């Protein structure tokens, strides 16, 4: 589509202002009904029986005693849901209920619907499952060995390898040969989880032949598809509604067992069925940050220019595929969107283990390599005696260029975000003393995945605007998961129509009422749904302006829009006038990314985006050399937002991203012992409270992207990324030791200090990267520059 940015910043009435979110009041007064707050007449309550074995064959399931319990309406097992599903087309490896084999502690095997949760739980306890335990695979290294009895899955392989990839761009060997300095490092990033405040919940009805599911999902579009597959039903008979959402961060992006179970139980019983997970179950459902082991080798010239980079990753995927094929490729895709790497080789592997399945968490597959890459560059800078900021600047990508792995870079504020945090923090003139440190890092993130998860030619986002009885209704499939997507859509439409965002009635995330939007993942909503809304609103504006111009007997260019007026008429009068003349007033907008934003090689689907945001962070902290404890003092975060649609919401996303980055940098970990989750509670799984969170200074850089709606880019994920390496860098600045493993905890700092004191390397982190039989490298030819201006 063509962009319709005609206003300069000073012309904008609501875009960029700090206005309250459009859904604030309902949430503040306790009226907003999240999925578990919904209550339909005659509802049954569902509980899932989950495996307590990490890996076992299911020999038999006896549900007779559970079915006989008073108050139980139905009990289902895997036999009732035989069709497999999975978010990625290549990894359809999940049964809603497993009846042949369980693969992690928490894998569901049966579901009960009963008059209340208490009865459903009692019934679950009466279900007899006979298991034959199998060897549990608990680590990347273990998964790489030949299985002693059988692999976790019988597809993919060899053994427990889920997916592998090996790509080379440019001549890496030649680059290393030309390098005057080469360095290798190994890093590990522990897995962690989203910990949304809201426990997942879903409620389903089956009336006539129509199935309706309300769920705390980020992606109703993909859940819709999965339900159609699992129930072998026409898409048109299924409606999935994303209920108001109590936090996602990527954790509610997959189709889930409890969603399938309530649908099936609603079909069996003819009654509404609801399932709300316990907090413990939320930890098992997971789909969170992959633990990733990383090896990186970089060759630089005398003056610090990167000449070649070789990056290897190994991801612990947990028990199922989930988004894994994409997660694996993301660990190698975006290194090039910040640094000009003329020769780049990536090798990645994702393995299955008998742990809760990993998936996408804020930053999906990129915080781990970003942590490794930024620290690796710090170490190179130290070795060649160059300031770490200067080393980075010498390698920064330029706007409107093409990366070696064929990604199209457009607007790029990487220099500006660096300037902002470096100047504001005084990083270059920081006082050096033992125990105090500052760290700097930068990053980049996508404004929406350039390709959908499954191959199809639908637009990525569509929007309908209806003006009726003087009011505006906007329909879009995007899902507000708390990030403020409804507010973005309302603000874009309000700007075009001369109204306030709260004048726009939003219906979103409902596959029965709203046109297609792929969902709230990959930071795609502002850019993609925002563009669809902009197009629909602009068309509606034109309709109203023309009607008013005809009445005022002037040209449409003379009709001013704003402050609730269209020309001399109020919006309501203009809307009524146009509706009298034209009948139904409905306009539409749709967005699909341009075709030339990425490469055409196998695995090129991961990485391309219509635009990239840029973030820079400086972290200031005190690290105690005697206890290893870290006191965070302050964080400076600058973000290239393109343009703020709502400055208050953008600031909130920045602060929230910084918070989540700090919390996982310093304490969060999804840890296991003998296949058991070690801390499946909010008390044991540590996360930041008010006490740990330092002051954050936010700087917004507006590069006004030519293709973004009003020039806007993403902010939901990018600002998290540089925070984690900046913490590690600051710890090194304070104590002179490298903590090459996330989370950065006092014990690791003390071990590194202890090693240093004993004359060994002052470092904590993995020593080796395992020998992995990656597939042979695919040498990708250079981008065909004739197909694109850059």
């Amino acid at each position, binding site marked *: 589509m063509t962009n319709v940015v005609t206003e300069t910043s000073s012309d904008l009435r609501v875009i960029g202002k*700090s206005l*309250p*979110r459009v*859904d*604030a*009041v*309902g*949430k*503040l*007064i*306790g*009226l*907003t*009904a*999240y999925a*578990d*707050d919904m*209550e339909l007449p005659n509802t049954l309550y569902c509980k899932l029986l989950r495996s307590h074995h990490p890996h076992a064959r299911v020999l038999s399931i006896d549900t007779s005693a559970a079915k006989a319990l008073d108050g139980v309406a139905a009990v289902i097992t895997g036999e009732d849901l035989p069709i497999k599903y999975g978010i990625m087309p290549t990894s359809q490896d999940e049964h809603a209920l497993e009846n042949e084999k369980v693969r992690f502690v928490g894998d569901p095997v049966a579901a009960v619907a009963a008059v209340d949760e208490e009865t459903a739980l009692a019934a679950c306890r009466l279900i007899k499952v006979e298991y034959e335990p199998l060897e549990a695979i608990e680590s990347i290294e273990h998964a790489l060995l030949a299985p002693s009895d059988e692999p976790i899955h019988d597809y993919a392989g060899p053994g427990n390898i889920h997916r592998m990839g090996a790509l080379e761009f440019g001549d890496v060997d030649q680059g290393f040969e030309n390098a005057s300095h080469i360095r290798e490092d190994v890093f590990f990033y522990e897995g962690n989880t*989203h*910990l*949304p*405040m*809201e*426990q997942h919940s879903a409620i389903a009805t089956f009336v006539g032949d129509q199935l309706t599911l309300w769920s705390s999902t980020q992606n109703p579009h993909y859940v819709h598809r999965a339900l159609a597959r699992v129930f072998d039903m026409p898409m048109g008979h299924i409606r999935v509604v994303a209920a*108001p*959402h*109590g*936090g*996602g*961060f990527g954790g509610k992006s997959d189709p889930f067992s409890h969603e399938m179970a309530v649908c099936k139980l609603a079909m069996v019983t003819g009654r509404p069925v609801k399932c709300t997970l*316990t*907090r413990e179950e939320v930890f098992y459902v997971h789909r969170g940050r992959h633990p990733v082991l990383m090896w990186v080798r970089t060759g630089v010239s005398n003056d610090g220019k990167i000449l070649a980079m070789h990056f290897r990753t190994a991801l612990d995927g947990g028990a199922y595929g989930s988004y894994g094929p994409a997660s694996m490729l993301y660990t190698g895709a975006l290194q090039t969107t910040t640094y000009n790497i003329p020769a780049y080789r990536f090798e990645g592997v994702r393995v299955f283990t008998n742990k809760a399945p990993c998936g996408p968490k804020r930053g999906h597959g990129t915080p781990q390599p970003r942590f490794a890459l930024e620290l690796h560059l710090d170490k190179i800078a130290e070795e060649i005696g160059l300031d770490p900021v200067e080393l980075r600047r010498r390698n920064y990508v330029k706007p409107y260029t093409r990366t070696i792995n064929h990604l199209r870079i457009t607007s790029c504020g990487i220099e500006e975000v660096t300037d902002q945090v470096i100047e504001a923090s005084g990083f270059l003139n920081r006082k050096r003393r033992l125990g105090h440190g500052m760290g700097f890092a930068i990053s980049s993130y996508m404004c929406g995945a350039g390709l959908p998860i499954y191959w199809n030619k639908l637009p990525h986002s569509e929007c309908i605007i209806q003006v009726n009885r003087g009011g505006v209704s906007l329909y879009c499939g995007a899902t507000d*998961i*708390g*990030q*403020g997507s409804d507010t973005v859509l309302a603000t874009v439409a309000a700007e075009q129509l001369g109204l306030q965002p709260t004048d726009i009635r939003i219906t979103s995330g409902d596959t029965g009422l709203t046109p297609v939007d792929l969902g709230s993942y990959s930071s795609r909503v502002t850019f993609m749904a925002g563009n669809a809304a902009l197009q629909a609103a602009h068309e509606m504006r034109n309709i109203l302006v023309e009607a008013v111009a005809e009445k005022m007997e002037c040209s449409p260019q003379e009709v001013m829009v704003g402050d609730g007026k269209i020309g001399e008429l109020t919006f309501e009068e203009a809307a009524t006038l146009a509706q009298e003349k034209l009948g139904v007033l409905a306009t539409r907008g749709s967005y699909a990314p341009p075709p030339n934003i990425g490469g055409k090689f196998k695995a090129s689907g991961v990485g391309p985006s219509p635009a990239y945001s840029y973030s820079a962070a400086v972290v200031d902290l005190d690290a105690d050399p005697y206890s290893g404890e870290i006191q965070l003092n302050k964080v400076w975060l600058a973000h290239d937002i393109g343009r703020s649609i709502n400055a*208050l*919401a953008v*600031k*909130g*996303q920045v*602060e*929230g*991203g*910084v*918070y*989540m980055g700090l919390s996982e940098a310093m304490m969060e970990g999804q840890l296991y012992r003998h296949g058991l989750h070690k801390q499946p*509670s*909010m*008390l044991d799984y540590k*996360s*930041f*409270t*008010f*006490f740990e*969170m330092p*002051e*954050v200074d936010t700087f917004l850089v507006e590069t006004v992207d030519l293709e973004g709606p009003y020039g806007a880019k993403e902010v939901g994920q990018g600002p998290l990324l540089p925070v984690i390496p900046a913490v590690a860098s600051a710890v090194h600045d304070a104590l002179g030791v490298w903590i090459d493993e996330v989370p950065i905890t006092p014990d690791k700092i003390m071990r590194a200090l202890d090693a240093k004191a004993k004359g060994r390397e002052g470092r904590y982190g993995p020593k080796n990267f395992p020998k992995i039989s990656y597939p042979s490298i695919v040498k990708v030819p250079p981008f065909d520059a004739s197909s694109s201006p850059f």
Partner: protein
Amino acid sequence: MGSIGSHEVLRLSVNGRSHELLVKPYATLLEILREDLRLTGTKHGCEAGECGACVVLIDGAPQLSCLVLPGQINGSEVTTIEGVTNGSELHPVQQAFMDHGALQCGYCTPGMVLSSVALLESNPAPSREEIKEALSGNLCRCTGYASIIEAVEDAGRSMA
């Protein structure tokens, strides 16, 4: 408290309205509010006293409703998020949360608002440290907490 069969009679005032409820002796106040009274503004994030989403005021003091049993609250006055608003007018704390962007997904918000109301009623001009102390039992995964602190400071000024 009287009892009928396996249930007990609980007398409770919620948001200024008196109730006589027949409840299981092990039902939590969270369950009573959400399931018996259908006041679903009170949220649950853990049902184990770890997250603060279910905070309500019991006789003016912030309490985790998921840990409170009927035997502890007979005759008490409970304020939930539904009782904070004065008609359709937002409480100054709610208004400040809105103005400062101190909510995103909104799931921690009812508990966060009630903890803040309780703080400001006893201490209208709290220091940042006092705000952190008072709200440290309320987790939020969206905001990074900073906007909440600003909102509470602002609300305190407008309530003074």
